[in-house]
């Protein structure tokens, strides 16, 4: 009996593990990535791509959502640009937008400003696209007012980056910016004003340290793959030689 359990135990564990995984997968359809690098994202969609990306560049998309007004309160929600890896995402809480009496909804729009973007801020360069974030009430089309801060997440193209900035029609204003963990190319900020937004970096380009770190991040892993292959090959050769010697002597 004990021997039977001992013999069947591994098979039972295998079946149980698969059944549990199937159950969890069915309940929550997450892709089964346990390791490795995160999945590569679609390339950044530029309004004005660098020359080497011109042929493959896809134009950036816009985003729009209507938030209903119930009892005078604008419902919260999120809006994002319509790409497989959204380049701008807004989170607006309940009652954070104010509309006139009689409005039935607030329309929030994110538009890439590809024609005539504002000039870059002094001492900084714009990284990627400028996006115009706006909210109007419906019907009527009057601007909705931001009564409390909303959150914006913006994708940053590869290369240098320092912080997000807001252009209010007259000047750029630096925003307190947080970076997504795990080296994900997203930056976030909480702001209380609609306007034009952009990722910016200090003029003068990337520091040598960040260039080296980026290079190591890209090619260091590949170097490890090669190293792993060499070690595995050497181990295998040594194993076969040892086996051969044992056969000859045994």
């Amino acid at each position, binding site marked *: 009996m004990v021997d039977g359990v*001992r013999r069947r*135990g*591994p*098979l*039972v*564990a*295998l*079946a*149980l*593990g*698969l059944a*549990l*995984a*199937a*159950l*969890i*997968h*069915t309940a*929550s*359809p*997450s*892709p*089964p*990535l*346990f*390791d*490795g*690098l*995160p*999945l*590569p994202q*679609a390339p950044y969609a530029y309004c004005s791509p660098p020359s080497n990306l011109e042929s493959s560049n896809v134009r950036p998309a816009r985003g729009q959502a209507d938030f209903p007004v119930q009892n005078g309160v604008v419902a919260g929600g999120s809006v994002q640009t319509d790409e*497989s890896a959204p380049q701008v995402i807004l989170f607006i809480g309940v009652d954070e937008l104010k509309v006139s009496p009689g409005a039935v909804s607030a329309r929030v729009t994110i538009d890439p400003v590809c024609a005539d973007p504002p000039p870059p801020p002094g001492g900084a360069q714009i990284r990627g696209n400028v996006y115009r974030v706006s909210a109007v009430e419906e019907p009527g089309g009057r601007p909705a007012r931001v009564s409390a801060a909303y959150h914006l997440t913006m994708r940053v193209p590869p290369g240098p980056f320092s912080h997000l900035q807001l252009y209010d029609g007259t000047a750029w204003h630096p925003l307190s910016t947080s*970076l997504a*963990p*795990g*080296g*994900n190319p997203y930056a976030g900020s909480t702001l209380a004003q609609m306007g034009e937004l952009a990722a910016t970096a200090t003029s003068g380009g990337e520091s040598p340290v960040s260039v080296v*770190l*980026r290079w*190591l*991040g*890209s090619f*260091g*892993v*590949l170097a*490890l*793959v090669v*190293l*792993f292959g060499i*070690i595995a090959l050497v*181990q295998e050769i040594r*194993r076969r030689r040892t086996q051969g010697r044992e056969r000859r002597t045994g």
Partner: protein
Amino acid sequence: MIASVGRTGAWPQAGRISALVLLAALARAAIEPMGEGMATAAFATVLLAGMVLTRPTSPLMGEGWSGGAAYSRWNTGRSLLGGLVVAALIVAPGLPALAGAGAGHASRGLDGWWAWAAVTALVATLEEVAIRGALQGALTRGAGTLPAIAAGAAVFALIHLPRYGLGGLPLDFAVGVALGGLRAVSGRVLPCAVAHTAADWAAWWMA
């Protein structure tokens, strides 16, 4: 070699291996703000260092990364096939739900696939060598097959905690139990490495 390590040395050995694997996961989590590439490189380096120490003569891991192939009735062909079947069984249940959710998995082409797949295979294989090979091997000698499978699955789930959070814990534990069972059934690490790698690769089209 298995006999030479002995039952009494199995527990300290399992402790050292668990510490090494968890240290690798902590190194990855600590370096993650510098970028995923750097974090994965750190994780792989620590595990790779462990793997180098898993030569059959190594006092650290004893049985080594050959994963008991000499004692298994599963040859390489059977190991590959078995690994692929288990990977398919891990992946398949999630497919209908993902298709229903309209995931944009079909849009990803093959640009960058080879480098991504190589790194993913490397990390998955290193983990299987350390957890299913060395750790489960040592614990099987010290505590028996089923506790070894459970402990290996727990370590497997724990090392993914910083990356996927508590939400990923049940799935990682369940897959760890399945892979541990596969290791015990086959007597080899190879089918586990194949299953783990193939399941990871499926995410290219599913995520």
